[in-house]
């Protein structure tokens, strides 16, 4: 490892160290949590379509399972490094802890580039991965999920191999399955709804009626669409959304002062949230530069598209009226912008709390699979609301009590929960 160069695991450890200092964790706890509990590294021989055998390298890192079975994705990536997987597994531990679901953190993958593999070869890799780890993963040990360049299809191949080896039905072994094959209802809307559940609670805490607020949203993909829907149901009004225009290779913001109409917009939106700008213009929307979403005179900003959108520069364009930034996307706010938001007293709902609806729903999928009983849609959403609401208040209370910035409070509460579980088990 060349010193000085970017290393995600170093970064994850540094982040942990900061919180550990704040929590004044003992050295054993720190030692335990700074590193994964277990790491598996193994070979997967695959007979390729042309008859030759190629050997792939597989990984699984189980960072911590003190609160429950590990949970985390399987990545197919041509230049995977173990440090990346370690860092990601650690983040999974905190992510599960912050919404208080009884799961630990894991991550795994295979060094391969699916662009160079046929479907049959990918299937063999999936099955080979499971064969190597069949005894170390499972519904009560470690539950994989789709990640970079893996999809529901890969999960089904893995599940099939797992069940074959263990001679039974274990749908709870893996999540991210399609409906009808052990998937859960509500998965599509879970993240977007989760974002607004936390937003609702934040407004409640600030004594603001959602009906008196308006918001601007970056992005019009899955998360944004459902977030806007639920926010509108609460009585709020989104006056601006931005979206990427594939033809022009740039983004635009679409503004309607009396509130956007999600259903009408969906009529002119492609599968990826790209809005047809000619047609939306006819519908009376004002078309602005893509960055304009952040400049709107609104109470709430919901970045729900890309990382690094609210930066030291763009934060300066933000209206003074903005009271809440609710992070639907991963990492939309840079540290420099965080500083400005904190100074201005803008309330931040950090990404790994606000968009934890997704992982929560994965947990629900596993729970339903384990008891082989699947809930109605309403029940899933109700349970999601309960989880998100509880998680928000826990973080918010801590932030108030300790005068912490929300993002820091979320980390503190997550790490504290895991450290406690370890200590209770006598691990540290």
């Amino acid at each position, binding site marked *: 490892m*060349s010193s*000085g*160069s*970017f290393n*995600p695991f170093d*970064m994850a450890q540094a982040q942990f160290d900061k919180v550990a200092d704040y929590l004044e964790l003992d050295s054993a706890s720190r030692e335990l949590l700074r590193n994964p509990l277990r790491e598996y590294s193994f070979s997967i021989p695959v007979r390729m*379509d042309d008859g030759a055998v190629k050997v792939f390298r597989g990984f699984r890192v189980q960072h911590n399972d003190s609160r429950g079975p590990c949970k985390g994705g399987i990545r197919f*990536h*041509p*230049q*995977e*490094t173990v440090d*990346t997987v370690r860092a990601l597994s650690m983040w999974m531990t905190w992510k599960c802890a912050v919404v208080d679901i009884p799961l630990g953190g894991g991550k795994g993958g295979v060094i391969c*580039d*699916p*662009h*160079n*593999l*046929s*479907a*049959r*070869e990918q299937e063999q890799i999936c099955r080979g991965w499971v064969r190597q780890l069949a005894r170390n993963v499972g519904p009560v040990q470690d539950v994989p999920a789709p990640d*970079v*360049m893996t*999809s*529901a*299809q890969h999960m089904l191949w893995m599940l099939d191999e797992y069940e074959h080896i263990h001679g039974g039905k274990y749908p709870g072994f893996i999540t991210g399955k*399609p*409906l009808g094959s052990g*998937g859960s209802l509500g*998965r*599509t809307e879970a993240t977007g709804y989760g974002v607004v559940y936390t937003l609702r609670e934040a407004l409640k805490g600030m004594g603001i009626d959602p009906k008196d607020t308006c918001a601007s949203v970056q992005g019009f993909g899955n998360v944004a669409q459902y977030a806007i829907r639920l926010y509108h149901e609460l009585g709020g009004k989104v006056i601006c959304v931005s979206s990427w225009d*594939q*033809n022009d*290779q*740039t983004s635009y913001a679409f503004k309607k002062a009396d509130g956007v109409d999600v259903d009408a917009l969906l009529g002119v939106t*492609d*599968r*990826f949230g790209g809005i047809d700008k000619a047609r939306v213009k006819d519908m009376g929307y004002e078309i602005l530069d893509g960055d304009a979403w952040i400049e709107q005179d609104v109470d709430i900003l919901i970045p729900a598209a890309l990382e*690094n959108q609210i930066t030291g520069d763009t934060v300066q364009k933000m209206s003074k009226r903005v009271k809440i930034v609710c992070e639907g996307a991963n990492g939309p706010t*840079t540290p420099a912008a965080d500083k400005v938001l904190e100074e201005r007293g803008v309330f931040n709902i950090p990404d790994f709390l606000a968009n934890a609806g997704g992982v929560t729903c994965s947990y629900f999928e596993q729970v339903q699979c384990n008891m082989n009983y699947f809930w109605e849609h309403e029940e899933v959403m109700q349970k999601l609301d309960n989880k998100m609401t509880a998680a928000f208040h826990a973080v918010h209370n801590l932030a108030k009590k300790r005068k912490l910035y929300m993002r820091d409070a979320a980390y503190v509460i997550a790490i504290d929960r895991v450290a406690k579980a370890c200590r209770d088990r006598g691990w540290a």
Partner: protein
Amino acid sequence: MSFHEELPLLSTDLLRARAQQLNCLYAVEELFNLPGNDEARVIRRLIELVPQGWRFPEHCRVRIAFDRQVFLSPDFGESAWVMTEKVRSKGRALGTISVYYARELPLADEGPFLDSEVRLLKIVAKRLGHFLEYNRMQEIFTGERAEQAEYGAGEWKTILEVLRNTNRNLYLRIVNHLLYHLCWNGEKDAQELLHDTSLEQRTDVEDTLKDPNRPYLSRSNELPPGMDDRILEIAGDTMDQEDLLKKIRKWIREDKLSFQVQILNRNLPLSEVGEAVRRYYNLMPDKMDLNLPAIKGITVSLIRRFLSDQLHYINVAKRHVHVGDFSELLRRLVFSTQSHGKLGGKSAGLYLASQILAKKAEQNAHIGRVKVPRTWHITSDMLLHFMHFNDLDEIVEQKYKPISQVRFEYPHVVQSFKNATFPPETIQGLSMALDELGGHPLIVRSSSLLEDSLGAAFSGKYKSLFLANQGSKKQRLSALLDAVAEVYASTFGPDPIEYRAERGLLDYGEEMGIMIQEVVGTRVGDYFLPTFAGVAFSRNEFRWSPRIKREDGLVRLVPGLGTRAVDRLSDDYPILLAPGQPGLRVNVTPQDIARYSPQKIDVINMRKNTFETVGIRQLLREFGYQIPRASQLVSIYQDGHIRKPQGAMVDFDEDDLVVTFEGLITNTPFIEQVQAMLSVLEEELETPVDIEFAHDGKDLYLLQCRPQSYDESAIPAEIPTDIPDEDLLFSANRYVSNGRIPDVTHIVYIDPEAYARLSTREDLLAVGQAVGRLNQILPKRQFVLMGPGRWGSRGDIKLGVNVTYSHINNTSMLIEVARKKGNYVPDLSFGTHFFQDLVEAQIRYLPLYPDDKGAVFNEAFFTDSPNVFADVVPELASLAETVRVIDVARATGGQVLKILMNAELDRAVGVLGEPSTVTERSSAQPRVVHHERRADNFWRWRLLMAEQIAARMDADELGVKAVYLFGSVKNATAHAQSDINLLVNFSGTPEQLMKLHQWLKGWSLCLDELNKLRTGYRSGGLLDVHIISDDDIAARTGYAAKIGAATDAARELPMGSGRDR
């Protein structure tokens, strides 16, 4: 006089006369084509038909005389008002046909007759001549056949008797054969006869033996009178009757063949060649054993005559095309009696390919199932015939006019073509075509001779038109004629003329064949469409995985009409497949599969008779159940999962469908079929091929086949062997495709080591942002991006620069450098993060492996050349160590970087050289000199206009301090679509700013209009204006950084210098 003023003169009478003549002609042609018709009956019917073509049918009488027979109209009486035409066959008069008017009638062009009636009678006489001659031959041979069973004694005499009366030359030749045969068999009488007639020759031969340089004396070939009877007598006495009959038959046949060779070699009109072929077909119903060289000779002559005179083509074609095949081709050929034309490149290519597939069908079941749609052809010279017929000959001169004038006048040319009349032969031929093709939608395509003889990429330059072909026969014919006229007119369109001018091909004669092809498909609702269609290449020039070999080929597949696969689209994507590796897909995640799937579909609207593009999801929802095998086109997208439908279980109303062709690829032999077709055609044509195909849900049809090198981007670049070391910047010897990037002025080099040293994610992301900025600022398509590892990495962005397609869409090439790390070389991305965007935008990709044996990588050039990054993007200057921008001209004293790629050698080089004006001759096209597309006048004119704008600008009134020019116009690299990039340093009031904008907008629109006239491109405004303030210039932000920049600096234009009116 305008055309419209002339109209009233074309009285309804004349129009009616014209229609009558046409009807008469159709009827006559139909009559002659009826099979097995009794001669007398046909003549009698002809006498009834002919008057219908004349102005006063009721007064019209006809007399036909031949072979001592006379046929007359019922109440025939001779009169003074008569026109007569000789009925001839091969120059010999057989008889006459005369048309009389029974009483005096108003005078017209020639007496009471119209000029067009004279022409009509000529045509009828000619057809009658052919018919009679054909019948003669038929009589001889059918008569002879009938007797085969009986072997009637003396039957051979009857044959020779007929011959003596109808074809004296042939008769004499047969008798001559007989004489030699008898001598050969030792008949004394015959030998004496021969001796008597050829005494001189014998001495001559003896003399020649003594003096080989003395010429033979000539002697008459004619037999002395009465001698033929004598010979026949001897033969009758001495030879077996049956044997004699056989011999005579054989000689006649051989003689006919030699006659055909003569016809073909004498460059006679197509009508006669056609007749000869038809006769041959009748001669050879059971493919008798004639000597091979004769047949070969005929085949080659026919190929040269109809298909192509390119040696390579002939060489291949003679192995696959047989004489008999031409009969079938001729049946669907539209030509005039005087035509000398050919089919043209596209038609000839398809014809040969279809013959090859037909011949290979037995060996390969996949190929056996490939079909070719019914296709009619119009020969190439019919265009000239058409123009001549309408006095449009002077339009040929269009090409020598200035291109702006050509463009300006083109709509007029189109209109005059569309309003012109077609020669009767064309109308008749197309009418027959419509009868056969019925109400099936058609495509009318050009088949240029230039494409055939030069191999230049001429396809796409000329028009192809889709026709719904609905309505009455009359409506359909008129629509078809209209389409042919429009395709004809496109020969004189500005784009092909400009293209030819650039390549020095202007003086090549304009001839253009036309191909009229059934559109493959089915009708659903108002729409007509094939289930899917596409193009396939036998060599893959866009490989997305190192596992894909060039030989694995490439297929671009779309639902509906193939137009969307042929063209590069900016807003949609075809499905890409390598038939040799069908399992390796470009897109692997469900999100990417859905994003890069076709969203639109081209169809023919049968009700509106238009070509339309409609949304796929909407079409499938409406007609999914009716489109044959539609379930094989789609996968179901659900919650981020993409699933192949279970058999035909697709809910077209409810399911979220993505076009993936998954069912087609995995459940049908389609891939094998395409692969078999590509490999057979490549092998037989001895060159990589590209084909177009369509599928109607039942069968796969081949629509076009041509050498792959016809596509300019696929031509292998010639790589010089003597590149001086100091000029060679890098070489590649793995995964190289064909092509060339001629004039790279800037290199963006991401230093791999410096990139690896960046310690925060923010810094790594900033490099991607810097590339995005450079992408906006550097001259479009004239810079290359070179970076470590995988361009477009997400997540683990240490592996490569985090960019999206919008950060790189102006580059000309994406280069990935794989440096060895310890003992392993990292995998490269092959551009997969935005592969399809690269393909559609024709941005090339090249992987470099500097540590490979034999690979050259002049790292010092990239790291030590002056780095102008900080000057270009001052706000990100801190990244200068990592992001290096090399102004090639500055670093080398005026040179540019050229990247030459040759997949045949699997070798590419980046070399420094002089900017090109005329590129080197390419090995694939030895005869064509490529001039660079960018004609000088694009930028000169723009520069002049930019100077004018500055000169005429009232600085005080508009609050302008300075005007700068940058970009392609400044760099003299502007092309037909380029903007004029201006920086305006403004420091006035808001009112002045508004005024300035208005003033510039006026210029912009005006220049855009002028550019439209010159180039055909309209952009909505030619100026790209950036208003900057003094503060911007001081801070060097945004475009202001261009002023005084170290590279590609904006140039100040002199203002207000007058040039008054």
